[in-house]
């Protein structure tokens, strides 16, 4: 399994480091033999094994325990360079040494196992909580438009005489809006599963960035006429090699977020510029922005701002990140303390050397 591979390499290194540190300490002690009694050496070796036990797995620790016991016996207990032990006292000391080193290793290992278990449990509980929040908001996001569609059709079908022509038009309009919203939500879910599946393959082709931006902004403004979006394009933007559909989704999600979260009367802008072969797109608003401590979390799946009162599923920005990275780009959020949010997308190597104009 690919997951255990890095662990194995590390384990090999652990064996190596354990052996090396025991040998190193042995060498130092051996050099100091004239000044140190051999019993003190046992304690020094024991400390070494204990230090190894703090950060290494159980097997390297056991190895270093056994190795150091052998070394102590062979090099330090008289007669030297034999495993033979002369006095009973020394024999007892050797056995005690070995037992203490073993107990040390096992206890440290057990403590770490317990810690690991507790950490895993905590992570699992967090994941479950996040997932439940997601399910709640998803059912809200899906059921609200469905409720609107069912309600509106019920009204239209009931043939109520007090329903004016204007009312009927309004109801049809509600159905259209709800269907659009539902479609958007389903689109997000499908995009998320595409990203999750790991088979996301962008179909990179030459795109006219200006055209794409204008298309997306038109879609946003049609549904949110109260919030105009200003477009600032560098005069000679080259063609860029990107997946047009993905880029549209990325821009749409960022803009719809700006519209939803920055509040009415906010200024929203899309800025496109090109530096050498890097395309840079910036979407900014002057809404409340993001708290500094949340900036690192906003692109995570299901993550939703802590002080937010608008409904949503927490998928939009994780799709932005997933798609941008699939196209070889990066996304960055900056939010100064005074308010406002700025998302910067960079696509290195996407811009063609040929200018459009």
């Amino acid at each position, binding site marked *: 399994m690919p997951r255990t591979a890095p662990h194995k390499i590390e384990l090999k290194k652990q064996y190596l480091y354990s052996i090396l540190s025991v040998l190193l300490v042995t060498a130092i002690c051996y050099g100091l033999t004239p000044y140190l009694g051999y019993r003190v050496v046992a304690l020094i070796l024991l400390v070494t094994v204990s230090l190894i036990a703090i950060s290494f797995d159980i097997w390297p620790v056991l190895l270093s325990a056994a190795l150091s016991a052998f070394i102590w016996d062979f090099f330090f207990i008289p007669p030297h360079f034999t495993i033979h032990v002369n006095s009973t006292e020394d024999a007892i000391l050797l056995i005690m040494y070995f037992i203490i080193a073993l107990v040390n290793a096992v206890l440290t290992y057990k403590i770490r196992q317990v810690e690991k278990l507790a950490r895993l449990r905590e992570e699992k509980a967090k994941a479950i909580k996040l997932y439940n929040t997601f399910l709640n908001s998803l059912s809200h996001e899906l*059921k*609200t438009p469905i409720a*609107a569609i069912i*309600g509106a059709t*019920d009204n239209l079908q009931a043939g109520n005489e*007090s*329903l004016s022509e204007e009312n009927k038009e309004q109801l049809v309009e509600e159905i259209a809006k709800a269907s659009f919203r539902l479609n958007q939500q389903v689109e997000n879910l499908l995009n998320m599963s595409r990203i999750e599946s790991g088979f996301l393959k962008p179909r990179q082709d030459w795109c006219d960035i200006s055209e794409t931006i204008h298309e997306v902004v038109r879609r946003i403004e049609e549904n949110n006429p109260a919030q105009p979006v200003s477009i600032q394009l560098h005069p000679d933007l080259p063609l860029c090699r990107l997946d047009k559909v993905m880029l549209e989704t990325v821009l749409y999600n960022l803009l719809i977020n700006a519209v939803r979260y920055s509040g009415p009367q906010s200024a929203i802008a899309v800025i496109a510029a090109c530096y050498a072969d890097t395309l840079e797109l910036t979407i900014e608003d002057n809404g409340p922005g993001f708290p500094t401590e949340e900036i690192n979390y906003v692109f995570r799946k299901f993550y939703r701002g802590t002080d937010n009162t608008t409904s949503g599923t927490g998928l939009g920005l994780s799709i932005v990140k997933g798609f941008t990275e699939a196209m070889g780009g990066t996304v960055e959020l900056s939010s100064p303390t005074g308010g406002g949010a700025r998302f910067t997308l960079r696509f290195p190597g996407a811009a063609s050397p040929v200018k459009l104009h």
Partner: protein
Amino acid sequence: MNKPGILVIDDEAQMRRLLDITLQTNGYLVTCAATAKEGLIQAANHPPDLVLLDLGLPDKSGQDVLKSLRQWYTNPIIILSVQHDEEAIITALDNGANDYLSKPFRTGELLARIRSAIRTFNTEEGEPIIGGPDLEIDLTARTVKRNNEPVKLTLTEYSLLALLARNEGKVLTHQYLLRAIWGPGFISQSQYLRVFIAQLRKKIEKDPNRPEYILTESGVGYRFINNS
């Protein structure tokens, strides 16, 4: 004619617009509020005849709004929510909601629940006879007739039926029924309730497997509907 006033508290603009048209064209005066704060202010300024309350509000939980309203507001409150979890429903009913509907709901159902809630509230002072010729419950004489034939009920059966009938149209939770009929020590003994509801249905329903009077609200409780 005096139109009954309904206050809609829902954060979704689309739901407000839809409920506005639905209720107005069905003869109600409608006011809408998008937040808990706005809703509480409007309810206090012009107490409506009924409140439609969404549980998922941005500024405050719907349950808290319900509690604040119930400190002084006695007219019916119906919960509209996408949360279909039984615990939330039971909590809302315990907090004083008269009824609940989960979204999406059928318009006919919503209108029926509104009519029933307003009617029950207006007749609460005690019409002694509930029902019609098919099923008649006389609360003064403590008798029950089906198709004009007297039905023999045990004391517990009668108390249960009378309690449900007095709260016509309203969901009564398992806990509430157990406490009211058997006492506070019995609130976890839901098997009692199931046995007695089954017995009652055998005696008063045409087809006990497809009840028309005592309806089950899965995981929550029972509701009496006056079909006579």
